């Protein structure tokens, strides 16, 4: 469990990091090292050069503006978990962050690293997919943005190139007015140290939070570890949109989700179990998000 030899680089800015990426052959980025370190130890990765970006302070920030929220790639899970600003405007993110492993992992692991790793079970990947985030990436040649629904291509394969660095993620606040939006992250894991068996993000916006039966204007539903990529279920979202949330609607959306997910068998959770879990989580997360949109929960 010892990594192969490598040369170590510790750039202080994103620009320096992208220059190193361009200049060095066989170089890999290291963020919190909470996934990469394991792959290195198992010698599934043996890069000649490791570029440590974990201490680039310029990439560690949560910036809540009137129109959008921007989160730097080196923002740690613990920063997200404890951000009062995020708890106010995008509570889904701290709620999901607190379920990532334990505090020591959350002190080091980052938002950018989760996206870079692109494990289908990643908590931030699931939430950012529901929130329709946009990734900002940089290389020595310049910058570009990637909408998150074009980012996850296949199992742990993404639209980011080898010479590119994810610098931040941006979530437009337009679809999520605080006073009539509710959010909920639900997760099942065997133990705190394990990745999710399954996770779900639900976001619900209603027309009038004070109405007896508010109508759902917009709904988002995405899943962690329910397919070979983080999965958003557009059909299920469409099904609950335009109506108040009723028991009948929750039943039928659960059926839709059961069929929409494409989970893999695992030792402790076979495919059918995961489908049932996804259906249950769809029902529960949407119900809680709907309550929260009306200010009812907690």
């Amino acid at each position, binding site marked *: *469990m*010892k*990594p*192969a*030899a*490598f*040369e*170590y680089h*510790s750039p202080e800015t994103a620009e320096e990091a992208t220059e190193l990426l361009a200049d060095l052959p066989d170089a890999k980025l290291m963020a919190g*090292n*909470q996934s990469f*370190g*394991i792959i290195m*130890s*198992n010698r599934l990765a043996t890069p000649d050069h*490791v570029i*440590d970006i*974990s*201490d680039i302070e310029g990439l560690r920030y949560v910036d809540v503006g009137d129109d959008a929220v921007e989160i730097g790639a080196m923002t740690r899970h*613990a920063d997200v978990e404890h951000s009062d600003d995020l708890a106010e405007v995008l509570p889904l993110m701290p709620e999901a962050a*607190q379920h990532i*492993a*334990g*505090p*020591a*992992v959350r*002190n*080091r692991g980052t938002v950018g690293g989760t996206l870079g790793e692109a494990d289908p079970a990643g908590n931030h990947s699931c939430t950012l997919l529901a929130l329709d985030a946009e990734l900002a990436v940089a290389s020595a040649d310049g910058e570009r943005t990637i909408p998150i629904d074009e980012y996850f291509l296949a199992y742990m394969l993404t639209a980011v190139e080898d010479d590119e660095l994810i610098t931040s993620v941006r979530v437009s606040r337009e679809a999520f007015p605080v006073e009539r939006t509710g959010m909920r992250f639900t997760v099942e894991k065997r133990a*705190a*140290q394990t990745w999710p068996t399954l996770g779900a993000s639900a976001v619900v916006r209603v027309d009038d939070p004070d109405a007896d039966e508010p109508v759902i204007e917009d709904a988002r539903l995405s899943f962690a570890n329910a397919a070979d990529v983080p999965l958003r279920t557009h059909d299920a979202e469409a099904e609950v949109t335009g109506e108040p949330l009723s028991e009948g609607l929750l039943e039928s959306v659960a059926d839709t989700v059961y069929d929409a997910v494409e989970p893999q068998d695992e030792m402790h959770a076979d495919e059918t179990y995961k489908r049932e879990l996804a259906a249950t989580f769809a029902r529960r997360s949407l119900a809680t998000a709907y309550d929260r949109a009306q200010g009812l929960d907690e």
Partner: protein
Amino acid sequence: MSTDTTTDRPTREISVTVNGEEVTAEVEPRLKLSDFLRNYVDLGSVRVGCEHGVCGACTVSVDGDIAKSCLMYAVQLDGKEVTTVEGISEAGSLHPIQEAFHEEHALQCGFCTSGFIMSAREFLAENPDPTRAEIKAALADNICRCTGYQNIFDAVERAADNMEGD
């Protein structure tokens, strides 16, 4: 045991404050912080269990935040501060958390203990009056194969009580 068997590969000089003392060493970039602390600084409290971030036996404090030292490299620590169990109390005396572990029989083989103590120490500094559920969540990164955890949770509760007003 500070023999370097890899002299033909590039090394780096690092200077790290370990338990308040400055330590300077030549290390290979791939040297894990856990191995550095055990083999270069002779700190036996840092245990190496899984070496992939799961068991928490290697938990130390880096610049005031706990981290799994098997998922950091010593080169990353240049200019930083590390605290291990050896550094949390005066030699020969016990930290209140260690005392509470003793009183509550919170260890059997003891392999996991330093990791739990480092996690509990950071947690209690931020949450001096925790609930049982909060204690469990705070120790989620640490595995114990002996005790069944209840005595560990009891010990952290007791430590919180004993440390009140500190």
